[in-house]
């Protein structure tokens, strides 16, 4: 205690603390404003995270959360031992792969085409039209798909029938399920997806094009050597984000398209959590399934972010 340096240290901290306290009193309104939001995050985000402990318990409603018995990894063992686990995993992966293969490039191509338009008015028109489906709910999109493809008076099947063909069970057959899921996403989100690429394209230095023209580059060469490299990093970042959310195949859409006949190829982790948890009331087991999904998702986000940085990109975290 006799050491003057050691003795002066706490006083500096004290001064700092006192300053902070004074600042906090002066800023009291800021904390009051912050309060409702903080409560929201605690109640609806952090309490459910604490509730994940249910996955390690045998939840019984009459005992409540605290008194229910601990069972360790029992639910996880049951889930991983179930052949359904592999089914869910492969269904999720195939849908996600379809999404990246068939949907992901579309907004880029569309943005490039829009960017080549010379008439700004025409560009605006096209954009206005292709954005619209983004604002429709999945229920509406799936309903429209039903109206077109059902065997009972659906437009497409009526057309097939009038040409003497056999009606196709588009909505009930497992073979069509993935095509429909991917097709609907394309229809709904391609236009909206162009926004970010168009913004990136707007930032390209026009002098580059002038220079290329003088060097005799045609439009295809300009596209290849100037436009595409300019949006490369945007493409990579979005691809990484997509990989990070790999397991989040559009849940609501799948839920709506799912029926007893295509469940074989359509059931994914989220829909399974809903069926076992909410419909059948197996809270602990389905919480375990949900926790598995969340953890894998988190690993994917960090993993893809790591890869992004390896590629010399900024990453998202």
């Amino acid at each position, binding site marked *: 205690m006799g050491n003057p340096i050691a003795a002066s240290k706490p006083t500096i901290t004290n001064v700092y603390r006192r300053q902070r306290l004074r*600042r906090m009193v002066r*800023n009291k*309104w*800021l*904390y009051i*404003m912050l309060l*409702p*939001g903080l409560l*929201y*995050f605690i*109640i*609806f*985000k*952090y*309490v*459910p*995270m604490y*509730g*994940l402990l*249910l996955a390690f318990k045998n939840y019984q409603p009459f005992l409540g959360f605290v008194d229910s018995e601990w069972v360790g990894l029992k639910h996880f063992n049951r889930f991983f031992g179930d052949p359904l686990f592999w089914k869910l995993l492969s269904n999720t992966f195939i849908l996600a792969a379809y999404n990246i293969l068939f949907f992901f490039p579309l907004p880029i191509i569309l943005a490039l085409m829009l960017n*080549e338009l010379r008439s700004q008015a025409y560009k605006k028109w*096209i954009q206005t*039209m292709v*954005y*619209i*489906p983004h*604002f*429709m*709910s*999945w*229920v*509406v999109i*799936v*309903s*429209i798909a039903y*109206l077109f493809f059902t065997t*009972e*008076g659906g437009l497409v099947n*009526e057309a097939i029938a009038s040409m003497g063909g056999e009606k196709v069970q588009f*909505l009930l057959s497992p073979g069509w399920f993935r095509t429909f899921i991917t097709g609907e996403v394309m229809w709904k989100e391609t*236009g909206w997806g162009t*926004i970010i690429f168009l*913004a990136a394209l707007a930032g390209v230095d026009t002098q580059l*094009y002038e220079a290329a*023209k003088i060097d005799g580059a*045609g*439009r295809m060469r300009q596209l290849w050597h100037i436009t595409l490299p300019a949006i490369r990093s945007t493409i990579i970042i979005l691809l990484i984000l997509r990989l990070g959310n790999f397991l989040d195949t559009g849940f609501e859409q799948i*839920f*709506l398209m799912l*029926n*007893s006949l295509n469940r074989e190829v359509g059931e994914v982790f989220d829909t399974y*959590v*809903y069926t076992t*948890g909410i419909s059948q009331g197996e809270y602990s087991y389905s*919480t375990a399934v*949900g*926790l598995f999904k*969340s953890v894998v*998702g988190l690993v994917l986000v960090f993993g893809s972010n790591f890869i992004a940085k390896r590629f010399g990109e*900024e990453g998202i975290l």
Partner: protein
Amino acid sequence: MVKETSWASRLFDIFNIIVLAVIALVTIIPFIYVVAGSFATQRELLEKGFILFPTEFSLEAYKYIFSTSTLMRSLGVTIFITIVGTLINITLTCLMAYPLSRRDMDFRSPIQLLIIFTMLFSGGMIPTFLVVKELGMLDTYWSLLLPGAISAFNLIIIRSFFQQLPPDLEESAKIDGASDPGILLRIVIPLSLPALATFSLFYAVGHWNTYFSSILYINDSTKWPIQVLLRQIVMLSQGGSLGDTSSLESNFIPPDQAVKMAVIVISTVPILIVYPFLQKHFAKGALLGSVKG
């Protein structure tokens, strides 16, 4: 710009214009078909199959819908949820975004970290359901309003937006004796109106289209939003064996094609009407969203 007039370039332009027109039509025609069909008679629909403009204009489907209590009630629920929900969203988001935008506030970064973490990891469906249940919100409108009251993503963007405003404005307001809530209300919010309008639209679209949370939290069919009813009418009334039809009211008659289409129109058009008014802003808003917070 140097004008290009080479044949290849012209050909490319023409090709591009045509393909884009086709894409736009493919996007919009299914919806136009549904709108047209909702004004057509059942006979014309059956005869022609595909119409983009009904020759016998009929309001029968809409008359039928507006005479049913079920549909009107659902529409009322959706309008209520959308208005009240959006007000709650934007109020809570602004209230939280403003303090977080202030560099002189303590504990700013730990709180932000706490918020960002919820974007990466969550308790998931079942624990959230149990929290809502424990709070006694099942079968109340609160369950549709509160669990999604703030989007962490929108919050971070609005905070960044507030942060860009020149701090001098706040300084001078403070010298004039304004309190922090006063600054938010009289300076920050008026200056951010375009951004806030955009995010209100995003929140409003979310509420209007809300489907799954109602399936999860609302068993009472008198409190169903329009989207849930739409699914019952279009998807579950046909095929019989599809999905769970148990919750469908037994006295509900299986509607004809035009009625189904009219329900789709009613559950889509009101929110689409808002969109042109905000269109010039949302590209900017969505863009802000893509930039790292």
